[in-house]
């Protein structure tokens, strides 16, 4: 999605029922959205660890607010109803995927580390 937004924004514009000829200025924010999505997404491809945990949590936040943005766009008539429904559905699916990734073991879910026993002496 990010790559398409960056390199072929007119494709996404048509998916949102935006006519590129009538609203050519839309391509520019699509490209800004695209580069950020691509670079944030690359962190999800990293091996397990703190970096990936952070990326998963950020992804959940982003997709949840995307759903809210799509709903606002629908309510205010910024997007046609059908396009708003598509955007809400896609972002909703992304929320579920992010939630799944967060709940899976060895992902973004914070784990309870065993409490340290400061009184014990190692090797004693």
């Amino acid at each position, binding site marked *: 999605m990010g790559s398409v937004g960056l390199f072929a924004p007119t494709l996404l514009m048509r998916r949102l029922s935006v006519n590129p000829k009538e609203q*050519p200025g839309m391509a520019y924010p699509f490209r800004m959205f695209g580069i950020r999505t691509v670079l944030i997404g690359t962190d999800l491809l990293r091996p397990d660890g703190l970096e990936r945990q*952070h990326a998963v949590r950020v992804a959940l936040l982003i997709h949840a607010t995307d759903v809210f943005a799509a709903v606002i766009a629908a309510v205010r008539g910024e997007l046609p109803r059908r396009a708003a429904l598509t955007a809400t559905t896609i972002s909703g699916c992304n929320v579920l995927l992010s939630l799944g990734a967060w709940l899976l073991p060895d992902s973004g879910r914070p784990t309870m580390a065993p409490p340290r026993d400061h009184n014990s002496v190692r090797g004693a």
Partner: protein
Amino acid sequence: MPALSAGVAERLILAVRFSLGPLSYLAPRFTGRVMLLPAGRNDAMPYLVRLFGIRDLALGVGALLAPQPTRQRILRYSAVIDAADAVAAVFAGTRGDIPVAASVEAALAGSVGAGLGLIAGALEVRVPTWWRAGFRSRRALK
């Protein structure tokens, strides 16, 4: 001319991320006007500006809270992102998608941002210990 340190560059980047991001999400039409984008012709512009805004804020949060290797990389991302923004602005201005003034403004802002990202990401950025200690103690309280 005093040299711009990595710490100052990082703070400037974070200031932009934490101001432009929420502003774009909460007041996309106003942000569009600041960026000289013709919102009147583009009904869906506020929606796109919101998507952009939350990602900008996420990058700021990432740079602020992530552990050091990630933090360094996110700051380097800033250079790539802002350079790409500048190229996109020039491209849009050349094609007549956005007004020339908007294109020039965005290209300048993107170029400055890319320069700051290079400075902030190239060198090791140290977070004040009092900040990290405060963050840890707040998490421990929860």
